[in-house]
């Protein structure tokens, strides 16, 4: 009886290990859509973004991500901040846990930002709009979770540090509780670092494994 049980157990585990799939392997190419929230930036305001990405996995433990994002932030009703990111990242997988694949991520992007103050039917503030191109680096952690062998959902948190000149503006609280957006108020703008956290949720589909198939 004991022998039968041991045999059953052995059979069960061999079946289990046979069914294990290498979900994140060399040669995988994935396409995905993402939504990004920008938090803890220079203003305590939440931004919402949308974008897409492609992943090309170079090694079993190393992936690359090529992405573009469009993020807009409501500056407390006093204006709008628009951000566009286009960049790339490297993902390192220290340990894969079957469907759950955590990673460390680092990368670089080009960044466009524009701040648009509120205009009204009486006041035109279009001359106060400010914009700039800059470069940024980002680093963080994340994880894929594979729902099927081809489809995964991914969540990541990254800190993005802008390297170039940044936009200088200030939200000034007024007596009636509303805010006023003051732009170009500081000509020493470029000398300070600016950073924020990006929380990204994405849906990704593996379109194929194009190299390194075993």
């Amino acid at each position, binding site marked *: 009886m004991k022998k039968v049980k041991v045999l059953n157990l052995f059979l069960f585990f061999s079946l289990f290990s046979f069914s294990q799939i290498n979900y994140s392997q060399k040669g995988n190419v994935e396409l995905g859509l993402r939504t990004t929230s920008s938090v803890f930036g220079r203003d305590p305001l939440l931004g919402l973004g949308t974008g897409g990405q492609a992943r090309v996995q170079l090694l079993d433990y190393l992936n690359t991500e090529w992405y573009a994002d469009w993020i807009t932030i409501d500056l407390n009703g006093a204006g*709008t901040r628009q951000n566009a990111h286009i960049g790339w990242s490297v993902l390192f997988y220290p340990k894969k846990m079957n469907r759950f694949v955590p990673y460390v991520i680092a990368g670089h992007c080009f960044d466009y930002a524009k701040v648009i*103050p509120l205009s*009204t039917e009486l006041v*035109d503030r279009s001359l106060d709009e400010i914009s700039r191109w800059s470069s940024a680096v980002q680093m963080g952690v994340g994880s894929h979770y594979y729902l099927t062998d081809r489809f995964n959902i991914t969540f990541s948190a990254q800190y993005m540090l802008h390297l170039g000149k940044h936009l200088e503006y200030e939200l000034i609280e007024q007596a009636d509780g509303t805010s006023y957006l003051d732009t170009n108020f500081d000509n020493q703008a470029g000398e300070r670092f600016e950073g924020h956290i990006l929380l990204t949720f994405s849906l990704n589909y593996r379109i194929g494994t194009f190299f390194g198939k075993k």
Partner: protein
Amino acid sequence: MVMKKILLLLLVVPLISYSQEFEVKDWRVNTALGFSVGFLTENTRSNNVHGLIGVLFKDKIELRGDSYYFLNNIGERPRFSKNHQIMAGAFYHFLSQKFQPYFGLQTGVAFSQSSEFGAINAETGVIEYKITVNPIVSVAGGLTLYAQKWFMIFVEARQNFGKHKSNVYPIYLDEFRLSFGFGFTF
């Protein structure tokens, strides 16, 4: 009278053929066109034409793109003169049979224009209403009925989240939408 007959035909044909066998495919393409009603705050509704195209793998995971063509806002506070949307994402189909409930997440952009708040252009003296591109996120669930070899019907509910941001006061794009439509699967 002719319209009534066509509508009746559209409803009856799928029901007659409902008893046919359903074949799970490695992948299938779904395309459909429908009508969507959106519910905003302050007793306001939106009417939209809803189009979709998706690829469904093994009748389980569907990668899908949707577009909404804004027709109008009616009610106590019509606030947009344009609110066209495109979005894409993935859906999980719970049953691999003719009748497929599904649930998913999409992200996209709204091409929106306020009808309430405009800003004066100091040069021309004209009040302008800017169209801006605003990110949106949408959670959706629905039912698909594969009624015939080439034919499908869908009903869907979704909640959109987002904000119209421009050079004027921001306006929430949050909206609950109900859609139904007909389409082809192949």
